[in-house]
């Protein structure tokens, strides 16, 4: 098997905690922090740590604002984040395809 696609996998996305976050954000224009926490059944701290990593990589934009006088934190994929996720999914599909050809 050609190991090339595996080596190209983005290590920022290819992590048990961050892949689900990227998947959720890829399916929605933006999501509230609390919605993501509930959907993924993560703790606040765990989600914050992963979001910070994705934010530092430039993949996720975090916005803080007020809604009905309550603080609301929302997250969205940035264009580079969307592109990186698309590449990641394509590489996974390549790996699966190669395995089926063997």
């Amino acid at each position, binding site marked *: *098997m050609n190991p090339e696609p*595996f080596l190209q996998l983005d290590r920022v996305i290819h992590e048990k905690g961050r*892949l*689900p976050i990227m*998947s*959720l954000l*890829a*399916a*929605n*224009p*933006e*999501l509230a922090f609390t919605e993501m926490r509930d*959907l993924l059944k993560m703790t606040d701290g765990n989600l914050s740590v992963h979001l910070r990593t994705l934010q530092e990589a430039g993949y996720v934009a975090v916005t803080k604002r007020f809604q009905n006088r309550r603080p609301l934190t929302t997250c969205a*994929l940035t264009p580079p984040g*969307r592109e990186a*996720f*698309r590449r990641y*999914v394509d590489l*996974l*599909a390549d*790996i*699966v395809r*190669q*395995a*089926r050809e063997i």
Partner: protein
Amino acid sequence: MQPDWAAENLQVIRTLMERSAIYRRALAPMTLLAGGLGTVAAVAGQALRLDAPRPFILYWLGVAVVAAGGAAFLVRRQALRAGETFWSPPARRVARAALPAAAAAAIFTLGVLLAGWRWPGGPGADDTTARLMMPAVWIMLYGLALSAAGFFMPRGIQWLGWIFIAGGGGAWVAAGSGLGFAAAGHWLMGLHFGLLHLAYGCYLLFTEKPGPPL
């Protein structure tokens, strides 16, 4: 081992994306179309004095069919433009959630049509009361459908559902208390299916964000 985890990861991605994807397609144009139709239909129904039981029901059923056809056309057009399937997983979830209330409304309407409008066995079953109760039940059941479908749609839909339930419930109580008046049916329909839809459509038009291209 590699292909196993790769396939598993792809499955995780697909499942999460499907589960979290919210139905957003053509919501603003759909609600504006329904609202415009509802408002015009209420005014026309009132002007044409379609107050007799059977014409009232058949008239509003016709309006509902036209609105549903128009909504399906708008959804299909947007799906074609976006290169997506019409019957997407979020659309299926929304339809499944709204189906019980829609089925109840259909069965209820059929029963009233067969009973000849008069409230079967109910107290004060005169035309005026029934004329208000019929749309009140429609409005409440529509609110229930919206509220159920709202779990898979933007949050505002559930609020809209509750407004319909409250409005229909208020009309129901008013009718039961003998506060109704004969011409209220069309106005009640116009207020809810017309103006409420128009207001929500305008809200969406100015606040909706475009969906992701993935």
